[in-house]
C-alpha cells in the first residue's frame, strides 16, 4: 500500500471517518437550519454536492496558476458562481423547496466545508483525486443532513415524506406531533445535532484502534 490513499479510499473517507458534519463539524449553519424535513435535507445535500464537485474541479485545474495570497478570494468567487447556477436551477425546477430553503442556498458560498476541501485537497492534488474527494464529502454531507432530517421530521411532524410527495411513513394517530413541535423549531435542531454528535463520538471511541492509514 502506497502512502497516499487510493481514490476510492479518498472517496470513502469523506463519507465515514471524515464526515464533514458529524466528525469535522463543518457547514453547521445549513445542517441546523434546513433539516426540519427529509426533502429539504436531500435537496440541500444535492445542491452542496454539485457546488463542492464543481469548485474542486475548477480549483484543481487552476492549482498551478493560483497565487497563495489571493486563493481565498478565488475560492469564494468560484463557489459563488456555481452557487448562483444551483440557485437558479432550484428556483426553476423545485420552486417550493427553494422557497423553504430561502437564504440558505446562497449561504452555501460561505459553507466552510467547501472552502476547506478546496484548500486541503483540490489545491494540492490532481483532478481525479479532487473529484473523488468532492463526491465523498458531498455524499457524506447529504447523509448527515438526511439522518437529522429523518429524526426531526418523524418526531416533529409525525410523518416522513420523500421529495416526490410520497409518504414513506406515518406515525399512528395516538402519537401527537404537536407535543414534539419543538423538534422542527430552532431549539430542536441544536438538541438533535448535539445528541447525534454525541452518539457518533461514542461509536468512534468504542471502535478498536486501527492501524493509522
Amino acid at each position, binding site marked *: 500500500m502506497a502512502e497516499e490513499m487510493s481514490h476510492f479510499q479518498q472517496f470513502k473517507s469523506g463519507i465515514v471517518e471524515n464526515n464533514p458534519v458529524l466528525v469535522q463539524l463543518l457547514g453547521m449553519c445549513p445542517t441546523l437550519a434546513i433539516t426540519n424535513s427529509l426533502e429539504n435535507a436531500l435537496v440541500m445535500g444535492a445542491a452542496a454536492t454539485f457546488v463542492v464537485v464543481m469548485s474542486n474541479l475548477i480549483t484543481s485545474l487552476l492549482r498551478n496558476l493560483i497565487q497563495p495570497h489571493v486563493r481565498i478570494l478565488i475560492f469564494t468567487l468560484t463557489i459563488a458562481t456555481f452557487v448562483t447556477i444551483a440557485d437558479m436551477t432550484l428556483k426553476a425546477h423545485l420552486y417550493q423547496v427553494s422557497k423553504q430553503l430561502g437564504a440558505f442556498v446562497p449561504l452555501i458560498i*460561505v459553507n466552510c466545508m467547501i472552502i476547506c476541501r478546496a484548500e486541503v485537497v483540490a489545491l494540492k492534488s490532481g483532478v481525479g483525486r479532487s473529484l473523488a474527494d468532492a463526491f465523498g464529502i458531498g455524499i457524506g454531507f447529504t447523509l448527515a443532513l438526511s439522518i437529522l432530517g429523518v429524526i426531526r421530521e418523524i418526531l416533529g411532524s409525525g410523518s416522513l415524506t420523500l421529495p416526490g410527495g410520497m409518504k414513506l411513513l406515518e406515525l399512528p394517530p395516538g402519537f401527537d406531533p404537536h407535543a414534539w413541535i419543538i423538534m422542527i423549531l430552532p*431549539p430542536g435542531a*441544536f*438538541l438533535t445535532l448535539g445528541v447525534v454528535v*454525541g452518539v457518533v*463520538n461514542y461509536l468512534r*471511541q468504542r471502535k478498536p484502534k486501527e492501524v493509522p492509514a
Partner: protein
Amino acid sequence: MSVDLGVMFGLFLSVVLVNNLVFQGFLGICPFLGVSRKLDMAFGMGCAVTFVITMAGVITWCIMHFVLHPVAGWALGDPRALNFLQYVAFIMVIASMVQLVEMYLKKFFPPLYTALGVFLPLITTNCAILGACLYIYMKDETQQLLNALIYAFGGGIGFAIAIVIMAGIREHIRFSRVPRPLQGAGISLLIAGILALAFTGFTGIGK
C-alpha cells in the same frame, strides 16, 4: 421619506432578541461554536462581527440600490435583470471589506488589531454577515438605508450577545464532569439548544 422611530426600534429589538441571527436564524454557527471557549475572545469576536456586519450591510445595500438596479434598468430595461450577480458581488464586498478593516486596524489601532488577531480573516466565511446582507435585500422594512443600517447593527449585537452568553456558560462548565462522547461540540450544541429555547420565549415581542 419620513423617519419612523417606532419601526426602527421594533426592527432593532426584533433582530437582536426575537429573530436572533444565531438562535433563530442559524447564522454564524461555526464561530459561535469555535470561538466561544473564552469570554474575552468571544467578546472580541462579537465586536469584530458587529463592525463588519454593519459596514457590509450598508455597502451591499448601496451596491444593490445605486449600482446593480440602476445599471440593469439603464442597460437592460429591467432593474432586476442583473440580480444574478448579487451573490458574487456581495461576497466580493465582504471579502474586500474584511481585508480593508484588517489593514486599517493594523495601521491606526494596533492594540485592537492584536486583540482580534486571528478572528479578522475568519469573518469572511461567517455566514451571519452574508446572511444579514441577503435578508436586508429580501425584507420590506429594510428598503430604506437607515433601516438597513439598524438591521445590520442589530444583527451584529445579537450575534455578540449570543456568543458572549455561550462563552460565559462554557467557562462555568469547564470543570464539570461531562460524559466523554459529549465533550466539546456535543455539550455546546445541547447548551445552545437550551439557550435557543430561552430565546424562543421572546417570540411575539414587536413584530
